[in-house]
């Protein structure tokens, strides 16, 4: 028998068993343990032949199934009556566990749907009113927040960080023209007279943005607003703002 699915597609031995039962088109109540055991073991062997790693819990389940199978084949007459009353038949126990596990597997689509639904709604960061209204330090410290509140707050920040980071870079950097970048560079250079070319970029910088910036730098150099310096090939490239007096005449040079 060829199996289209691989062992790593299962969440565990119970999941694999449910799959085999479904393939056999029978209900959990009607399963024949010796048959399903054989199928289970065949599947494991098949996976071993494919050199796939089999987690030990699958092997443990194989041993357990074999144990049930052998127990069923033993005559029951000699077993103490009290034991029968108190100990659940292992076959029944297996079926019960499968049914219980299946309950949770069957509810997964609901959670997926809810997850998708919530993803359709975006909420904003709470407005920070701390500068508007003063709050007494003592008042804030009245009651302890738990360390879980702290973790939850951290996760919220990180979710937002991931959510908002691309917006800023995308909108800003996609739409910027060389002229706009020249204006930006001028204002950067006014506050910082001397800078390294690479300082104009960060981790999120796109190729287009670098090209636009490079063109803008060349333009500024052509207009003698900046001076470009490089000591040697592959060294850092420095940009220097050329100060002008009020009449627009350059100092030096």
């Amino acid at each position, binding site marked *: 028998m060829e199996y289209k699915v691989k062992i790593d597609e299962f969440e565990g031995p119970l999941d694999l068993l449910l799959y085999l039962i479904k393939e056999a088109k029978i209900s959990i109540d009607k399963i024949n343990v010796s048959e399903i055991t054989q199928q289970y073991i065949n599947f494991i062997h098949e996976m071993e032949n494919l050199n796939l790693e089999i987690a030990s819990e699958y092997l443990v389940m194989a041993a357990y199934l074999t144990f049930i199978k052998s127990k069923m084949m033993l005559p029951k007459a000699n077993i103490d009556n009290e034991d029968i009353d108190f100990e659940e038949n292992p076959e029944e126990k297996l079926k019960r566990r499968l049914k219980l596990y299946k309950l949770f597997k069957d509810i997964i689509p609901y959670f997926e749907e809810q997850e998708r639904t919530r993803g359709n709604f975006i909420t904003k960061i709470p407005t920070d009113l701390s500068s508007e209204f003063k709050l007494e330090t003592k008042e804030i410290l009245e009651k302890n927040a738990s360390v879980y509140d702290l973790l939850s707050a951290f*996760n919220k920040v990180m979710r937002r960080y991931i959510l908002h980071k691309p917006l800023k870079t995308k909108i800003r950097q996609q739409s910027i023209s060389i002229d706009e970048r020249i204006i930006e560079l001028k204002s950067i250079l006014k506050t910082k007279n001397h800078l390294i070319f690479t300082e104009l970029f960060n981790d999120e910088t796109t190729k287009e943005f670098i090209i636009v910036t490079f063109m803008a730098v060349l333009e500024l150099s052509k207009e003698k607003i900046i001076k470009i310096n490089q000591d040697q090939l592959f060294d850092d490239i420095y940009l220097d703002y050329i100060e002008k007096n009020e009449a627009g005449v350059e100092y030096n040079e």
Partner: protein
Amino acid sequence: MNRTQMLAALEGLLYIAGDDGLKPEEIASFFEIAVDEANDLVESLSDMYDNSIRGITIINTANSYKMTTKKEFIEMYRKLYVDINKSKLTNATLEVLAVVGYKQPITRAEIEDIRGTNSDNIIRRLLAMSLIKEIGRLDTPGRPIIYGTTNDFLDYFNLSSLEELPELLDNIDIDEEMEQDLFSNLAKFDIK
């Protein structure tokens, strides 16, 4: 303060609160009205948003009302935002969450017993995502940690409370079984 002013003030409050949202009880205390009336007020505001010219709406997750964008435009917003909810939780993770969601308070051993597989790593991930939390310890040998879901869990699955979870497809045998377990476990719990 008349109703029009109350609606306007509520809109401002919900805007400020953002993803923190406001509990019905909090709204009630602002306006010094009953909780029922607070829910009513939100309902009225929500109705006003139910207009094609409006782009915002109100949802209730984790027992908090939150102002959000309407879902009609989500694809447009997605062009600009990497939506965190695009990275869906894996099946195994959802399984553990479902088990904790329905069977809390629950220990790791009980989760693993239901799933028939090691769940340690998934539980650690869910703790780190603050979707579940430690809520106490069992008063049995080894004092195992017991877990429950968080407000972030409710928000993540768009639920206002745990009662909103649909009933598991019922199977009488299993329900009885679980109830027994629950009672014997409750007796053992030592929650602080």
